[in-house]
């Protein structure tokens, strides 16, 4: 799937940047019409200021800003990464039980010379596409499709990479009737038993159990602006604050940004993004992530099957703080 070659749509917190770049543009236009060497210097200084502002803006983001970048409609999705890592990857379809959930995609590919299985949530780009993918919220059938691919990987010894960018599992009537809970629960249990290395990457939103259902991994990586949380900040705000406009507070309180999740020892590595976010440069974002994955995979493939399983068990066994 091609990347949107459109200019990235600015986010609310980027307004000061936008204003400055607007000024520069106007000045440059004026200068093009009647050149004035005195103003050249002004433009140069403005541009310097712009770059400085950009740098400081993106290094001092609030949790809410990270969330906005993580949810940016132009953010690269699983298919964008898969296609860049291996243009000839083989997509595998279906849960073998009656459905092929478009919100969960997966298949076989070569990543840096290694044959691996990739599985990821997919949000969809155009409106129709988005609707088909349920805005990245998998149905139980999606999780069962993922499980089928995990089992295939386990049988044939493919290391697994999962990409996670989902608001959560789809909360619908048929989803409940088809046992969304069991689909997630079974994935958690079966992933724990896999004898091949698993690396999960939060590429955008890691929304609750629907994210974890493909996230029981030996290594959990998070992109710089991605978030991972037990409930959506909107849900948290409406339950705990009883007010939908406390999303910013909920974001802050839940400690959901990549750096915070790493401090809580859930995330193993934060992967840098192109300045401003992955949507500014798909190729660079995909390449950064690929390098990190290859590095971790090379470590993990040294482990025996039993060691891989034990390594994963130990990772999750240690998570949590009790008194």
């Amino acid at each position, binding site marked *: 799937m091609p990347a949107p070659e459109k200019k990235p749509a600015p986010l609310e917190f980027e307004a000061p940047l936008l204003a400055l770049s607007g000024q520069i543009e106007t000045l440059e236009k004026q200068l093009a019409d009647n050149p004035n060497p005195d103003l050249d210097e002004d433009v140069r200084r403005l541009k310097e200021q712009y770059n400085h502002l950009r740098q400081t803006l993106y290094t001092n983001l609030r949790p809410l800003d990270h969330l906005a970048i993580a949810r940016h409609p132009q953010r690269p999705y699983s298919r964008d990464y898969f296609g860049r890592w291996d243009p000839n990857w083989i997509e595998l379809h279906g849960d073998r039980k009656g459905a092929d959930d478009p919100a969960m995609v997966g298949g076989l590919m070569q990543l840096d010379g290694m044959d691996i299985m990739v599985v990821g949530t997919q949000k969809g780009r155009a409106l129709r596409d988005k609707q088909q993918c349920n805005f990245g919220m998998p149905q139980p059938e999606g999780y069962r499709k993922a499980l089928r691919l995990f089992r295939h990987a386990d049988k044939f010894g493919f290391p697994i990479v999962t990409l996670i960018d989902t608001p959560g*599992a*789809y*909360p*619908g*009537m048929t*989803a*409940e*009737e*088809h*046992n*969304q*809970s*069991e689909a*997630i*629960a*079974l994935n*958690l*249990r*079966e992933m*724990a*038993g896999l004898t091949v290395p698993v690396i999960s990457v939060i590429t955008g939103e890691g929304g*609750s*159990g629907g994210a*974890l*259902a493909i*996230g*029981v991994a030996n290594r959990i990586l998070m992109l710089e602006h991605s978030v*991972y*949380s*037990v*409930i959506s900040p909107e*849900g*948290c705000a*409406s*339950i*705990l*604050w009883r007010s939908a406009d406390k999303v910013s*507070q*909920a974001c802050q*309180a*839940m*400690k*959901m940004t990549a750096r915070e*999740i790493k401090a*809580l020892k*859930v995330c193993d590595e934060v992967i840098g993004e192109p300045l401003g976010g992955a949507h500014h440069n798909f190729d660079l974002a995909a390449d950064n992530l690929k390098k990190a994955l290859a590095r971790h995979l090379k470590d993990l493939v040294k482990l025996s099957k039993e060691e891989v399983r034990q390594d*994963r*068990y130990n990772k*999750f*066994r240690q*998570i*949590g*703080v*009790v*008194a």
Partner: protein
Amino acid sequence: MDLKDWFASRQKRRDTLVVKQPLTTEEYCALWTSCFQCRELIYTRDLRANNHVCPKCQFHFRIGANQRIEQLLDTDSFVEIDRALTSADPLEFKDTDTYVNRLAEAKRKSGLNEAIICGTGTIDGQKLALAVMEFGHFGGSMGSVVGEKVTRTVELALEEKLPVVIISSSGGARMQEGILSLMQMAKTSSALQELHKQGLLYISILTEPTFGGVTASFAMLGDIIIAEPGARIGFAGQRVIEQTIRQKLPADFQTAEYLMKHGQVDLVVERGKLRDMLAKLLTSHSPNKNQTKHPVENQKTASSRR
């Protein structure tokens, strides 16, 4: 989310109760309990004798973890583990109040350190590892401690080769511990993977209400899943689903009976019959099954040993 639904419906119930109840003294209230479902006034002592099930309409009142243990296990057979384990505040979480204050309030209200009681005990002489959730403590939500205790219970069962019974009652993951709560789903399920591999029996019992991260982890992983009549069980709360699909849900949606109809639970068992059912299942799954000639007789002798 589910917790919110629960609070809303509880409030509704309370409101109607206030209207329906005749003005009485506090003693009178303690003596009589009005059934949430059929409004029948029941003599509280009778209700207790009937396992807190309405004699008229079979409505199952919510009961505490200690009461359940008392109902199910052989007298004095329960040995609790990790009683003292209590929640920390790793996120220094604060909403309209601090997590620390909310924890203290939960402890005061429930008299427990956490939303689950774990240990070992016997049913008709058969030893098992048991974890019972307490909805009355922080809405039965799963944070680090609940996850840790469930995991330790399963690990204990692995060590001693015991069957596991977990009785769930929970609004889901505990938001105040953020991502750490979410990860307890993976931790508990990983322990159950080991149990599964070792071929040990796990019976999951779902009671009113079981939702969110608890349903989507250990609660739905039972080799056998039993639900209590009328219990509401699901992943997402009804309000969230209605907002998503913009459609009214059927009246019995997410009830034990509805789950049974959709193939999600093995059995719906009345509270009064649960102990016998567990005894039967434990016997039929015992490692020396099919080695004795008369398993039915064996079971009878076992139950007379009570």
